[in-house]
């Protein structure tokens, strides 16, 4: 096992973490501000991927597709917020789970209706094709590095947005006291729609970026959604810092576990058994990490006071 291979896997883990952060940031923001658990967040991710693939295929440009994915996911988010989600803020979590579960059924089947059951494919844009050399002699896909870059930019952008702008101030105020900010004359309904659309756009962006790495198909959002849940539970629901930390942790632990566990087991038991057992254990690893963290910190690593 060379250093280059290890580094490559580490970067893969980071790239998965960044993708999860884009999902988890929206999810945790929506929960933090509106107190809503949104299962349909994975559908917004899927909508972003489909919009990107369809528009890129029609126009020939990945970049127009990427812009379309942001617009489509944000629009879908705003539409469901106004028609459905808005009615759920005062309901208990069970109603929220069910209503957003119903939205998943509608979105998944609706997408299958529009695009058929066959997956779509999205090519990596020419600008980002190719590989960069790694120290130690390896090569690494430029596109994956670019995804990591996007994640860093989004994390910084969110930080500035939340802590330095007027909108961010209102979002933070809405998090801590909904009645007070409404009494001060802020249009809380519009604010909620904006926050929801922002979260949706981030999910759509994640879907579009990942769409070029794997096939774009119905159901692609669900594994990402569940991993994003693990991320925000580890990080502390409502905390964007927690989402960033949790996402990187989950991404790296999952990738490195799949890479290293079978090898580590092979040192102890025959290789023929080590492969499957290691793979099975690796697929459970992040959940074990989550259970351990929760056993000691039941409200996550960066829990907010509310």
């Amino acid at each position, binding site marked *: 096992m060379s250093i280059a291979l290890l580094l490559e896997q580490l970067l893969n883990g980071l790239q998965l973490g960044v993708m999860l952060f884009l999902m988890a940031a929206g999810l945790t923001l929506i*929960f933090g501000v509106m107190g809503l*658990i949104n299962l349909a967040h994975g559908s917004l991710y899927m909508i972003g991927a489909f919009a990107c693939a369809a528009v890129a295929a029609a126009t020939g440009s990945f970049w127009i597709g990427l812009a379309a994915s942001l617009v489509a996911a944000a629009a879908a988010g705003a539409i469901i917020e106004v028609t*459905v989600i808005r*009615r759920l803020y005062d309901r208990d*979590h*069970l*109603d929220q*789970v*069910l*209503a957003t*579960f*119903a*939205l*998943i*059924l*509608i979105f*998944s*089947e*609706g997408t*299958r*209706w529009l695009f058929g059951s066959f997956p779509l494919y999205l090519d990596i844009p020419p600008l980002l094709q190719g590989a960069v050399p790694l120290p130690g002699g390896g090569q690494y896909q430029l596109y994956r590095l670019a995804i990591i870059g996007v994640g860093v930019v989004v994390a910084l952008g969110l930080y500035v947005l939340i802590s330095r702008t007027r909108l961010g101030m209102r979002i933070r105020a809405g998090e801590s006291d909904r009645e007070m900010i409404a009494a001060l004359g802020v249009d809380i309904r519009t604010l909620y729609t904006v926050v929801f659309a922002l979260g949706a756009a981030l999910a759509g962006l994640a879907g579009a970026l990942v769409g070029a790495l794997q096939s774009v198909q119905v159901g692609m959002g*669900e594994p990402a959604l*569940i991993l994003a*849940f*693990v991320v*925000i*539970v580890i990080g502390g*629901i409502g905390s964007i810092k927690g989402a960033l930390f949790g996402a990187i942790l989950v991404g790296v632990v999952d990738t490195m576990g799949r890479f290293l566990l079978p090898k580590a087991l092979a040192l102890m038991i025959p290789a023929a058994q080590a492969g*499957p057992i290691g*793979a*099975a254990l690796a*697929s*459970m690893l992040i*959940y*074990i990490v*989550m*259970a351990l963290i*929760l*056993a000691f910190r*039941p*409200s*996550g690593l960066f829990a907010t006071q509310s």
Partner: protein
Amino acid sequence: MTNASFMTRETIVNTALALLLLGFPLAAQAMGEPFYITLATRIAILALAAVGLNIALGLGGLVSFGHAAFFGLGGYAAGILATHAFDGVPLFAGIPGTASMPIIWLVAVMVCGLIALPIGAISLRTTGVYFIMITLAFAQMIYYFAVSWPAYGGEDGLSIYVRNEFPGVNTAQPLSYFLICYAVLMAALGLFWLLRGSRFGAALQAARQNATRLSAVGIAPFNIRLVAFALSAMVTGVAGALFADLNKFVSPSMLSWHMSGELIVLIILGGKGRLFGPVAGAMLYVLFEFALGGITERWQFFLGLILLGVVLFARGGLLGLLAGKARHG
């Protein structure tokens, strides 16, 4: 006594539902339509799984989004034991497999209880959204384990070549198998009824309504909830074993989070915390699936719309509609 009149109305509705579920396959048998017997068996088994979840969700207010884990574990208990019995290969340490349903159910109950205890012990340290997501995550953990563990079929699942046996009954006959499932469902409903009326049930419902007051009278909510969670998992596990025998097949899809969602949907469609809520919900759900599935292959789209309508506008489910509002119990 207004309460008494509500009870009578609910009892009448419950009896009608129980008779309807029994009468439907009998009529189907008389008309020589075995397909409808299978449909009724499916209803009975899904209702049984939801009765299990109703202990945690309805009585205890514990929104477990991971009960598919126990449904699937029960299914795999049936599948694995049957495979070993069929092949004549011992399970481990010389313990043979078995094709006897009562033993399989016992194993399913024990496995689900033993796995529900640690999952519950960690999950119950949290509440609200955390609890929902953590139970979901644990179920996914078991799902991925089943997918990546090759010994019992992995992603492809495991076939049960001959339906398991029940002493004195020919389980291969659809109607006989329905009657077994129906009897187990009625037993589980009896258990739920006893539990709800017991001191334990009172404590569990008090833990849902006001945990602080329950602690103040010297009962630890955590222990009550943990026992309820484990009991709930055990009942759902038996349903899983029956489901595997119905389909003669078990696969990771029984463990998937869609299954967990469906189980919650059954309860909400029927009426949360109501004795016959899961039965009414399972009847409605399978009916929707069958009726919509016959009209369009996009039936899930319309199921989603109906479900959305029920959540937003028709709280209380079918039993709320038929038998009036639930008593505050």
